[in-house]
């Protein structure tokens, strides 16, 4: 189905099942521990052997010698793979720059250099420790701050439109002439996805056919990548990933667990399972790159922005991409003059790549702090400053409107519900015993991306429906919203729909990433359902145009037939997908939020404790408010981590992230997260898809870090521009406790 004109009224608009706060249909499996995650699929292949990964001990250089003889001779060992078995690195998968295995060169710390397969996990681990490796170290580039001044521009935009500096109007003159100005520098650190389930795969060969039971967000990408890396025909690879214990972008790509399980299974002549050891997770895989950012804002005394500069420098391995921290600044606020650029330094730290809300997460942490600083300088309420600068069109292309944009309503609703008027605009004034109390807010913004997505739906003989797509549920509620979509379209109760996901033999979906999963995958299923409705109507002798599907019946005029009747003569199967026209070129499609936070800072110790958080979200039709709320509060929690504690600490001598386990890379615990509230505005977006939904899974993270930091400033009067805002950064400037 091609979606190239705005959606009219359709069966989803009935909202009998879609739009309801439905419990997750996979919830009981999760809460009883019976959802089979990749490493636990003991039944899929017999006689599984265990793999253990060895990571490089240096960050940059070469392996000069590796002795695996002791490991090979160790009890239970079935195979030992060495990176030196390959003259050069295995080909790259899609969208990655760090080679996963092969060759003597070391490009980053904990790069996989060997893999031991044994009868038991303990034997594999013990043997792995017997491998002796000698290295020749090279001097690496591990210090972003040192590399930043000479880093080259990274053009923004695509193809011939790409420019070093994205300018609109004349920034320099407008900024110079602006009556009120701020100019500040900020940093955000590298962050680790730190998902609960590590990378994990079971691999089995049958002749030249390979099956991988794994944990991956993007099944079609990973099948394609595996074909490249392993030099295989795609049709000989099957990838299955029905349950994923968190990914946050870390599992968008094929990781070394899948590659080594496949190679190890071949070498051992048996199925092999592996879960990446936790201490390897941070340095072996990808992370959110650190940034150094500058924002300059010029405004008139009434708060109208006349000039915006936003620049960001990040680092990556050669041929890597930058963290696009300036992305939102092109679209969030009206300002006739703007200047936006990025620079990219070459560093020899592990690969930087997508982590939940790439670009906007660190970009808004900075831009929205700068807006807070400007509001203070203007003597203006921070909410009003954002409202005054709202735009309903793409500021660079004024004839290109937003499809739906209700940021102002998000902010006004949030301010009212949160009790924003009680905030003292003068920082450092509000006390509750020893606590310094403050409120902060920020705007949230994240684009809505349209990508094609397909699904198959079957009407079984007993009237049940089966949905099959390679779409993934990374804990987001995808099973449930797909079931809701099919139930709504076919007029059956939710319990009559079975959803099977994550198998590369199924039609290719959008996958889970970039908050595009929900809207696109349900729209793809919508298309398949439209086809199935036609088939049903035809089989039952209805004129397809005026049939209704409701209460398990197919109806037109006075005639009603049970849906199951249509499958009496045989199962009906329909497969289709959604493809998009140019609506996202004609209209800017984005999602918006107002974040409000109250914090208390211990005036003695400088510890920050969040007291309450509110997000008001404008993200199209909300398909399942319960699942969407879970997404948003999870993202707000991640934002709390980013604002208060998360930081991959770099050892600039040895070139690695030092705090590479969950004891030392701190993410929020329950005690850090008090009251969270989410309000969804109800603005279905008919330009986004027949579902009229948009993404919401990342929106909750966008801006919340700045809202927290702004609240800390309001509490203390100390502005910390280097995230995370840990106590050591403001301790000596806090107001006295007496």
């Amino acid at each position, binding site marked *: 189905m091609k979606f190239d004109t705005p959606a009219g009224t359709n069966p989803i608009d009935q909202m009998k099942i879609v739009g309801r706060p439905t419990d997750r249909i996979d919830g009981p499996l999760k809460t009883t521990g019976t959802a089979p995650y990749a490493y636990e699929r003991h039944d899929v292949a017999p006689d599984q052997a265990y793999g253990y990964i060895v990571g490089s001990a240096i960050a940059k250089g070469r392996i000069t010698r590796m002795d695996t003889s002791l490991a090979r001779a160790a009890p239970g060992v079935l195979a030992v793979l060495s990176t030196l078995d390959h003259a050069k690195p295995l080909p790259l998968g899609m969208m990655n720059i760090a080679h996963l295995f092969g060759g003597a060169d070391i490009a980053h710390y904990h790069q996989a250099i060997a893999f031991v397969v044994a009868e038991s996990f303990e034997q594999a681990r013990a043997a792995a420790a017997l491998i002796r490796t000698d290295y020749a170290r090279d001097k690496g580039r591990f210090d972003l701050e040192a590399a930043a001044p000479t880093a080259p521009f990274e053009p923004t935009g695509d193809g011939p439109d790409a420019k070093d500096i994205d300018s609109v109007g004349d920034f320099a003159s407008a900024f110079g002439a602006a009556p009120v100005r701020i100019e500040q520098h900020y940093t955000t650190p590298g962050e680790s996805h730190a998902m609960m389930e590590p990378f994990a795969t079971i691999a089995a060969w049958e002749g030249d056919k390979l099956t991988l039971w794994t944990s991956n967000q993007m099944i079609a990408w990973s099948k394609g990548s595996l074909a490249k890396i392993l030099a295989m025909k795609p049709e000989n690879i099957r990838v299955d990933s029905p349950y994923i214990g968190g990914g946050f972008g870390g599992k968008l790509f094929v990781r070394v667990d899948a590659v080594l399980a496949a190679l190890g299974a071949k070498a051992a002549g048996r199925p092999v399972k592996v879960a990446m050891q936790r201490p390897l997770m941070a340095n072996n895989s990808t992370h959110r790159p650190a940034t150094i950012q500058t924002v300059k804002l010029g405004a008139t005394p009434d708060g109208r922005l006349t000039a915006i500069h936003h620049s960001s420098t990040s680092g990556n391995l050669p041929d890597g991409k930058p963290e696009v921290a300036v992305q939102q600044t092109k679209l969030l606020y009206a300002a006739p003059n703007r200047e936006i650029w990025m620079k990219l330094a070459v560093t020899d730290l592990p690969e930087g790549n997508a982590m939940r809300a790439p670009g906007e997460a660190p970009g808004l942490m900075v831009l929205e702090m700068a807006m807070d600083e400007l509001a203070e300088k203007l003597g203006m309420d921070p909410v009003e400053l954002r409202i005054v600068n709202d735009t309903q069109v793409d500021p660079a292309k004024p004839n290109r409107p937003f499809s739906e944009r209700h940021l102002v309503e998000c902010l006004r609703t949030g301010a009212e519900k949160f009790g924003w008027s009680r905030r003292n605009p003068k920082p450092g004034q509000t006390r509750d015993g020893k606590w310094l109390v403050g409120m902060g807010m920020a705007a949230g913004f994240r684009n809505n991306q349209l990508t094609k997505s397909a699904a198959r739906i079957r009407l079984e003989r007993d009237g049940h429906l089966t949905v099959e797509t390679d779409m993934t549920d990374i804990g987001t509620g995808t099973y449930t919203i797909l079931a809701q979509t099919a139930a709504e379209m076919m007029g059956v109760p939710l319990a009559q729909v079975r959803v099977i996901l994550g198998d590369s033999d199924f039609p290719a979906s959008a996958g889970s990433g970039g908050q595009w999963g929900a809207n696109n995958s349900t729209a793809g299923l919508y298309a398949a359902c439209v086809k199935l409705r036609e088939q049903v109507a035809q089989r039952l002798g209805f004129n397809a145009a005026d049939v209704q599907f409701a209460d398990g019946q197919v109806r037109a005029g006075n005639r009603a037939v049970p849906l199951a009747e249509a499958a009496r003569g045989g199962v009906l199967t329909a497969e289709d997908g959604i493809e998009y026209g140019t609506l996202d070129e004609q209209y800017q499609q984005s999602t918006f939020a107002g974040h409000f936070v109250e914090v208390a800072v211990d005036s003695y110790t400088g510890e920050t404790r969040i007291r309450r958080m509110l997000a008001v979200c404008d993200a199209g039709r909300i398909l399942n408010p319960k699942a969407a709320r879970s997404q948003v509060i999870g993202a707000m929690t991640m934002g709390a981590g980013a604002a208060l504690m998360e930081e991959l600490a770099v*050892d600039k001598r*040895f070139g690695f992230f*030092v705090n590479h386990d969950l004891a030392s890379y701190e993410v929020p615990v329950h005690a850090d997260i008090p009251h969270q509230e989410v309000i969804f505005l109800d603005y279905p977006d008919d330009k986004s898809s027949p579902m009229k939904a948009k993404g919401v899974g990342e929106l909750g993270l966008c801006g919340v870090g700045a809202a927290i930091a702004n609240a800390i400033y309001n509490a203390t009067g100390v502005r910390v521009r280097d995230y995370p805002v840990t106590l050591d950064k403001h301790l000596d400037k806090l107001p006295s406790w007496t």
Partner: protein
Amino acid sequence: MKSFTYERASTPAQAAAAVAGRQGAKFLAGGTNLLDLMKLEIETPTHLVDVQDLKLDRIEKTEKGGLRIGALVTNTALAADDRVRRDYGVLTRAIVAGASGQLRNKATTAGNLLQRTRCPYFYDTNQPCNKRKPGTGCGAIGGYSRQLAVVGSSDQCIATYPGDMAVAMRVLDAAVETVKPDGQTRAIPMADFHRLPGDHPERDNVLEQGELITAVTLPKPLGGTHIYQKVRDRASYAFALVSVAAVIGKDGAGRVAFGGVAHKPWRVEAAEAAMSQGPRAVAGQVFADARPTPDNRFKIALAERTLASVMAQAKG
């Protein structure tokens, strides 16, 4: 993890002899620290002597009016004991500020005292570390040292003792009772139990090979207000950046020990005379010889401010 052999001892003397008699043998209590370190091959014992059957899991009154805490009393049981809660509140507060409920159910009194540092370079076997592998150098000096020691450190090691319980025991003047392989017993004052790193950071404490902890004794109750304040980046389930254990009387006089700042619970008795002059006077003396790194210099101010908070709480 290296292969090892395992036995369960039934008496303290037998346990001590079993460990003394074999090179590379170690005691195993709750296993919450030792087993983690073995999986990473930071510790590589060849033989484990499990002490769980030694019946050292009681808390009894001593003749001097204090308490004797068996080496195997769990953190959960110790923190919940009515006598401890009533008379040694600082100890209960310190214990419940540590780890998680599940860990405290397994963790024992002796094992907790002997938990090893959380220095990240100690935990990464690719990195130099004099404590893990004597003579390889110290990765943390000149590296990422935000968590590490500001006082009492050496050019060989700047690790901290990471635990909470021992800081409270230090302020209470507890003593560690042991039995040696030859049957001799001794009581080691908590002040002398943990070592400073000096030239031998591989040695955390003064125990000899095969010397078994049987109990920790607390002197008779001190009275006063008992406070343990632990400062960290997240609200729970993290090791202390700085902690303060204090027992403070009505007159403002009292005792104070610091956690998270040194290779042992850090208490400078002489500085306690300055309690009436306020936190600055005390901290000035306690940290007079501090040698912080650029990463952890803030801990000195933080320790003083945390002490100020504790003193304010004691005033009520």
